[in-house]
């Protein structure tokens, strides 16, 4: 996975409660890139996933989402990526 892809995804997730498809929409990356990248970032301990409660999804008449959020290590990595790529914040 290219470093800028991971940096873009970390930046997107930092923006708020994010699930896979919203990352695709925000970054413009295809599904075949985004989902493996999310798995890898989670495996590396940079992000963490959790399923939202079924009751919330039921109330809004939609399937439950699997949300991703940055871990402490992910936040530190994003900070160093921002220093390395100053334009990162404008990309997403």
């Amino acid at each position, binding site marked *: *996975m*290219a470093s800028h892809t991971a940096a873009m995804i970390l930046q997107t997730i930092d923006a708020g409660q994010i699930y896979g498809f919203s990352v*695709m929409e925000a970054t413009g990356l295809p599904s075949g890139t985004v989902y493996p990248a999310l798995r890898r970032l989670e495996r590396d301990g940079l992000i963490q996933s959790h399923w939202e409660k079924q009751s919330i999804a039921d109330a809004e008449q939609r399937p439950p989402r699997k949300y991703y959020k940055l871990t402490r290590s992910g936040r530190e990595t994003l900070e160093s990526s921002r220093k390395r790529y100053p334009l990162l914040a404008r990309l997403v």
Partner: protein
Amino acid sequence: MNDVIIRVAGSLVPAAHRAEWLAEWRSELWYVARGGHRATVFCLGAFRDALWLRRNAPLPRVYGSLLIDVQQSFPGPPPAGDSRLLESPVRCLAFLGLLAALSLAVFFLLPGARHSDRRVFLSLLTMFAVAWLIVPATTTLSLGDYPANRHWLRRRVFFAAKIALIFPTMIFSPLPVAASMGPAAATLGAAAALGSQLAFWGGVMAIRWALLDQRRRCPVCLRLLANPVRIGQSSRIFLDWNGTELVCLRGHGLLHVPESPAIWFSKQRWLYFDPSWTGLF
């Protein structure tokens, strides 16, 4: 239709992760379809995701006297050196020999194949030779750095034996396919073209495999290395790991493979264990 694509892709995901994987992709598909996006294109990405999980999903393993819970200690090593079938050099050569024998048997048992035109045979040989020129474009030919270059003869003989066994498989197995098109002169060109394509692509893949397999073997016992472990801090080098280390289960040494080849460390390196390590194996 889209659900079928996700189901088929899901069959590639390891069973332990499949239910959650399917739930996530089905949930996401609902949002994609609702947003008026191209759902089929979205679903095709599931194959790449499934393959990634298949390659990287952690599984606990036991090797020799070394008990390592990969899931707890090493969250996601690459699967290099994972093939138990071809782990020992004898079994690897026996397997390749069996393939070669089968190819030869089919060649000699099918009269059509046995009487293949000489030009078809020559075109297969040519394409196999051309495959050797293409392979460096797909993978490095270097087999790594080995200090003092000990055991070089053993490694080279093993590699040569693999290639020698691959050769008849790649030359004789396309012939029955080409011969099945008929001996008529009109089909001769088509038969040669088909056989050549098979010999070429088969040759590229087989030579590439032989090189990759060679790089994942212990230079002393020639067994496949195991227990791959990612080392260094994740994401330090362009959000990547420093490298991966694999160990010989007989305690001969350790192979360090850099994740991102650099000028100062471009090739994999082998480190021989001294006798102080024997207690672990």
